[in-house]
């Protein structure tokens, strides 16, 4: 790909710009116009313009919350099997794919030989995580997802930002994906 270069004409300031005050008054004018318009729309309750665009750009946070788009990568969750056990088999694919190295897993021996391996520890450090979504991309079991639609909340300590298996499982729901490939 070749880079395209666009030459921008240098603005030569005229006397009005050099005098400074007229430009400030112009800016204040824009702000005042928006303020009056918004105030009018708010009082009359009009939210959409005739063209369908939003008339008021802001929302009344925190009373009103903006919904995240469906593909938003938020707080991780660990999905569950039909019998509510963790789907994760501790294969370390997510922690291997993780570019930030924020996933710490310890594997354990499951008493059911058909499951065999499961995580006894699964920690994600949300201060280290860069929310790139590589972990859910790498997961062969549909075990880790980032589709909770929640951003990570601020906490009072660094250690609280390290979320553990229990917390991740609580957010997770059942997954209907077939575990272990297409054919048994």
């Amino acid at each position, binding site marked *: 790909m070749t880079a395209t270069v666009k030459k921008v004409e240098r603005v030569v300031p005229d006397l009005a710009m050099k005098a400074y005050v007229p430009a400030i008054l112009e800016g204040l004018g824009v702000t005042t116009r928006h303020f009056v318009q918004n105030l009018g729309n708010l009082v009359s309750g009009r939210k959409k313009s005739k063209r369908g665009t939003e008339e008021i750009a802001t929302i009344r946070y925190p009373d009103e919350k903006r919904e995240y788009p469906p593909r938003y990568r938020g707080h991780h969750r660990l999905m569950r099997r039909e019998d509510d056990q963790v789907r994760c*088999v*501790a*294969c*370390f*694919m997510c922690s*291997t794919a993780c570019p930030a190295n924020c996933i710490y897993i310890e*594997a*354990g*021996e499951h008493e059911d*030989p*058909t499951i*065999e*391996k499961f995580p006894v520890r699964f920690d994600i450090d949300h201060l280290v995580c860069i929310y790139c979504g590589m972990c859910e991309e790498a997961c*062969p*079991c549909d075990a880790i997802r980032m589709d909770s639609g929640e951003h990570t909340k601020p906490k009072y300590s660094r250690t609280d930002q390290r979320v553990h298996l229990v917390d991740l499982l609580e957010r997770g729901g059942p997954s209907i994906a077939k575990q*272990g*490939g297409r*054919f*048994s």
Partner: protein
Amino acid sequence: MPTLKINDQEVTVEQGTTVLKAAAETGVEIPTFCYHPGLSAPANCRMCLVEIDGGRGPQLMPACYTQAGEGMDVKTDSPTTKDAQKSVLEFILLNHPVDCPICDQAGECTLQDHYFDYSAQPSRLRHTKVHKPKVKVLGPNIVLDAERCILCTRCVRFCDEVTETHELRVTQRGDHSEITTFPGLDLDNKYSLCTADICPVGALTSRGFRFKARVWNNKRTKSVCDQCARNCSTFVDTLRNDVKRVSPRTNEEVNSWWACDEGRTAFKKYQEGRYLKGVISHEGTTNELAPSDSYHRLGSQLSQTVEAHGGEAVGILIHPSWSNEDIFVAAQFAMEAGFSLYVGGRATDGYEDNILIRGDKNANRYGMNLILEAMGVKHGGVDSLAAAIEAGTIRTLLILDGEHALPESVITSIGQVEKVIALAAWQTPILDAAHVIAPTRLVYERGGTFVNFEGHIQRFHKTQMHDVNILSPWHALSTIARAGGWDMQYDRISDVFAGMAEMVPRFAGLAYQELPDDGVTTVQAASTGAV
């Protein structure tokens, strides 16, 4: 001496060489599963099928079994060969569970590698796969997953040909075939973990290493086993400063392809009771001490004793499992200061075989004897130490490494010694009597050289590090000597080795940095070197 063509490249090989080895000589790799250089070749996996024209027209023959013949035309990349490889892999993978996410072999699996190199096609099977037992414990160290097994019978042949213990056998027929132990037998021989190494897939895996780490996360370092006088070449795999696994490194001069279970699991005993700080015990209370302070404490203790009672009042107990460098520095220190030198060491369990395991459980007795002889240091055994303690001539005893098998007479009389000081890496019962303990590195955390019972010198490398302030034994001894006012100027291990090579004729001409991975024989070095 037949001359044959491999991919249109002529090569002349010894009579009796297999096509596989002839191809390897020309740099052509033929994929295999059941072939192992240390075992017989049954040619049952069919992965090494290549198109060979021996005069009767091209036909597919197993390269691991077919001997190279005059005028043979071998084609390893012809469409027929490639098709055969692809078909064999499809057949092998037919009932394979493909549970790589939970399989410990993933990452070092021959089936994975060959699949990506020679097949890379999806399964065409539309029926239920044959299911076999999973997580079947075969012995104290090995667990079997029969579904993953490709029936190469490497493990069966290992138990038949190498250990000659005959525990394993293939039972049933066709796709119901499975590896199992004979009724009433466990896969419990001294080399059972080797079956997990040679298993090309994840059918046999180590119980000790099971689910401990994924292999690609491990850091692999070349090392040498210090658990007996054989000095097997090993790989030490570490993860976050913890040894996870020790596996044999091919070295035909020393251990071929194998290593014993005992040596490979020995790292576990060092994980408990590590000394990461110096320890001072005084009238029942113990205090911790920074490592560097503890070395100074030992140095001043030694110089005090020498000033008050002379050098012979200090006994120094060295360990024949320490590296040449450690022993050399200890011996030089003892000579300079006039200490009495005693040799301790691990006790033998009386077992010895003609595969690998030696009765002498000390890694470097041969090297120690070479050094002590060349330097002309007077030394005694643990019995003369007992006599010296009994006679009261020893005022301060410096124990180097806590892993000594001491006779009852020493253990009971050790309390009579005024000061017992030690330089050790981990806690052992004999160190309970020590007043000051300075920490040192484990064999996995330091570099050095060992000489095995046949006079073969090998270098081992540093794998992990807990604290850089904890020094290797030779460095710690050098620091202790300096703290006590003696002249000991060793700061680099290559300098120690150079000093040693100057003094010990059998090491003449060797340089620490230039020692090859497989080591060299000191016996040869003596005959070829300047005498």
